[in-house]
């Protein structure tokens, strides 16, 4: 069946039926230092400031990122969110998504899936050249897929996204055919991600270190300098011809250059924005968002990362949370709402679902998460945790009711860490001894791998409800070759496994929706998780910046249409 971009696929149809948001399988992404896969944001780009004035070309925009500095600017290598953020400015993918979540043309103008679903043909856009002069053609796509799949590249996210691709052949100079090991309805979404963006085949030939420093793409900007620990400088690609189909009309890119600065300290980052030193910041903290609200010269772009919500996983694999009553007692004893209200200043909304609020199939059940200390105490008494020691913690068989909570300081923003402290303080009332163990990512991984945790927050996200399968299928308890396992709650229920596997294969929307709803209810009812809020993704920018928008694919900001009004 040949599919024109305008005629949505079956999945896409069901998607448009159910929601404004896209919900389909997409590749696995490591976001920031988190495993994430993203769908488009539910928010409209905030760039339309009346639109009265015409874009002005020129100027340098300074972007300050709080994300870690990439070790390689080629997102094929590894593949994390910081790479995606900056790569959005100079690399482009075969396809993109529009605001409604529909797949739209980008470097490929059209595509078609074979009847058996085992091969796809992509027709490439004409007259696109990489910034080193190499043409974008079938051979270039071949080279890119080969590069991602080459173990020497060390690709993780892109490699997984192309997991079912067994070969790429050039049908003609402009038509390229992907052959698959099995049908993959998520292939288009996978290809929309920056982690499999197209790079100049000549550039890929260079040594890895060189390509890491100056990857060559077709995007609106070109990497010209990387001053480590300080900034990346990007210059305008004057020959830019290939915006995605949903790009605004105009002859961008307008900016002469972008200075992409690394400012890890959030207070400094905001101070730099407020003082006009930088124009755009990401990872804006709640208090900064509130402060920016009062500042007429600042605007906010809220593009929550879609997928699963931010939630605490209660490790049901080991004591004490192998007892559902203790899990419920913990959840009932945790006063989360007050903390979210005060720490996030209303910039984040409480979630009662395993999935992000933008997920149409998300099931919310607030009643399960009521703060109820009395009930918590009853549950614990009933569960045999009847005694209390001198410090007020519950004791059973001489064993204190200790809950080990490793916190990755790289992944949890300060406000979130404070929220954990508040959970620690409130659950203490019920007699829980929550031991917060803040540490770097390496220590955190080690604690998880050693199964020495009782609670953990691990914002794993995957586009669509299929994320549930990754997170709660018992397969996820077995560590992947990398040592990481996603089912951190260690939910091991055969009936849940069945529901999740079935849901990922069934094509009927109603049925699928029901299956996922049932699965979520099981997870929620079993008190395996304590949902907190959506994954936050706030940008702040100077009002002088016009035309800034977030890509509907992975919510990274694009400066392709941005210009400076000053």
């Amino acid at each position, binding site marked *: 069946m040949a599919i024109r971009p305008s005629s949505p696929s079956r999945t896409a149809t069901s998607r448009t039926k159910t929601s404004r948001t896209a919900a389909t399988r997409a590749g696995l992404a490591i976001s920031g230092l988190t495993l994430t896969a993203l769908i488009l944001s539910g928010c409209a780009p905030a760039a339309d400031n009346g639109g009265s004035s015409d874009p002005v070309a020129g100027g340098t925009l300074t972007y300050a990122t709080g994300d870690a500095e990439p070790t390689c600017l080629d997102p094929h290598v590894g593949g994390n969110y910081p790479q995606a953020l900056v790569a959005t400015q100079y690399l482009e993918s075969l396809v993109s998504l529009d605001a409604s979540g529909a797949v739209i043309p980008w470097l490929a103008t059209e595509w078609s899936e074979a009847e058996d679903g085992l091969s796809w043909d992509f027709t490439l856009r004409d007259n696109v050249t990489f910034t080193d002069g190499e043409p974008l053609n079938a051979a270039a796509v071949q080279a890119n897929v080969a590069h991602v799949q080459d173990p020497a590249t060390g690709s993780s996210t892109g490699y997984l996204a192309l997991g079912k691709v067994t070969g790429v052949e050039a049908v003609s100079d402009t038509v390229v055919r992907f052959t698959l090991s099995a049908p993959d309805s998520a292939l288009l979404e996978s290809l929309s991600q920056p982690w499999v963006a197209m790079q100049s085949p000549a550039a890929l030939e260079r040594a890895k270190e060189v390509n890491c420093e100056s990857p060559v793409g077709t995007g609106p900007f070109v990497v010209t300098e990387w001053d480590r620990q300080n900034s990346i400088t990007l210059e305008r690609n004057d020959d830019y011809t290939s915006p995605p189909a949903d790009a605004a009309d105009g002859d961008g890119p307008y900016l002469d250059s972008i200075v992409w600065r690394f400012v890890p*300290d*959030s*207070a400094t980052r*905001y*101070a730099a924005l*407020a003082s006009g030193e930088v124009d755009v910041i990401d990872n804006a*903290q709640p*208090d*900064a968002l*509130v*402060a920016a609200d009062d500042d007429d010269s600042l605007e906010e772009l809220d593009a929550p990362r879609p997928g699963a919500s931010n939630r605490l996983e209660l490790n049901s694999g080991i004591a004490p949370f192998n007892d559902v009553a203790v899990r419920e007692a913990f959840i009932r004893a945790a*006063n989360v709402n*007050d*903390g979210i*209200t*005060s*720490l996030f200043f209303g910039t984040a909304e409480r979630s009662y679902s395993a999935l992000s609020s933008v997920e149409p199939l998300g099931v919310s059940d607030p009643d399960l998460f009521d703060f109820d200390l009395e009930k918590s105490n009853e549950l614990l008494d009933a569960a045999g945790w009847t005694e209390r020691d001198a410090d007020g913690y519950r004791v059973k068989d001489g064993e204190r009711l200790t809950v080990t909570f490793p916190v990755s*300081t790289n992944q949890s923003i*300060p*406000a979130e*860490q*404070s929220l954990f*402290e*508040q959970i*620690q*303080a*409130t659950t203490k009332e019920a007699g829980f001894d929550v031991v*917060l163990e*803040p*540490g*770097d990512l390496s*220590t955190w991984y080690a604690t998880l791998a050693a199964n020495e945790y009782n609670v953990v927050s691990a914002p794993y996200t995957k586009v669509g409800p299929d994320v549930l399968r990754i997170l709660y299928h018992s397969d996820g308890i077995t560590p992947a070759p990398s040592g990481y396992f996603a089912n951190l709650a260690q939910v091991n229920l055969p009936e849940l496994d069945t529901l999740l596997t079935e849901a990922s294969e069934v094509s009927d929307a109603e049925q699928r929706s029901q299956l996922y709803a049932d699965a979520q209810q099981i997870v929620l009812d079993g008190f395996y998780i304590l949902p907190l809020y959506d994954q936050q993704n706030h940008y702040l920018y100077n009002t002088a910046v016009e035309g800034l928008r977030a890509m509907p694919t992975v919510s990274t900001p694009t400066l392709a249409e941005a210009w400076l009004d000053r």
Partner: protein
Amino acid sequence: MKRPSVVETAPVVVLAFFVVSAVAPNLIAPGDPLAIDPLASFQAPSAGHPLGTDESGRDILTRIVHGAAPSLLIGVLATAIGVGLGLVLGIVGGLGPRWLDTTSTRFVEVLFAFPGLLLALLFIAIAGPGPVTSTIAVGLATAPGYARLVRSQVLSVRRSGYVEAALVLGHGWWRRLLRHILPNVTATLFVLVTLGVGQSIVWASSLSYLGLGVSPPAAEWGAMLNSGRTYVASFWWMTFFPGLAIVLSAAATTLLGRSLQSRVRSS
């Protein structure tokens, strides 16, 4: 003895406050430093909360008062480790045979090649972060300085007129060591320690600030600064007051050390 001046009394008053805070915090601030009140968070200093509240609505005054014990203890313990090591190395160097002196002096010189917090950071990189390692790390980092001072002190006492006089009187080595050398070295060492505690407090809090020492929500000044730094632009009191506590205690111990020093010198 002359009447104590303001410069001498002020640090004593400040330190007395912090010592009382450390020993009996409930006398000054009878609250729970970890008690949260999320709905009363980020409050500016007021009558109810003289120094304001932090992000979880904890009273900052209470936390500073209760934080005196861990904060000062880390400084004191680190100094103790540093002085202890310094004493061993310094006494071995100052009293031992020549080859031992040379060896220990060289060893101290090698430790000296890692200036400031470098030795501490190297140690943390090896042993991993945490309050215990950061205390040891600061102790290690200060040890070579103390070793050098102790050695020179031991040498100057050993070569002093009164120790020589004891030798001329026919007094044995042990008697000279116990009666004259050690007591006199200890006397001046006390001053050095007082001067050094301030620096240790600052260093230990720096490590906590960098997330390598005590971690929040513990009421430790460096850790309080660490969690408050995100909010520095909006809620200055969260970082200002814990910082002030560090500065005051460090400056007060230093001033105290200096007035002790000048008293020792003048007598």
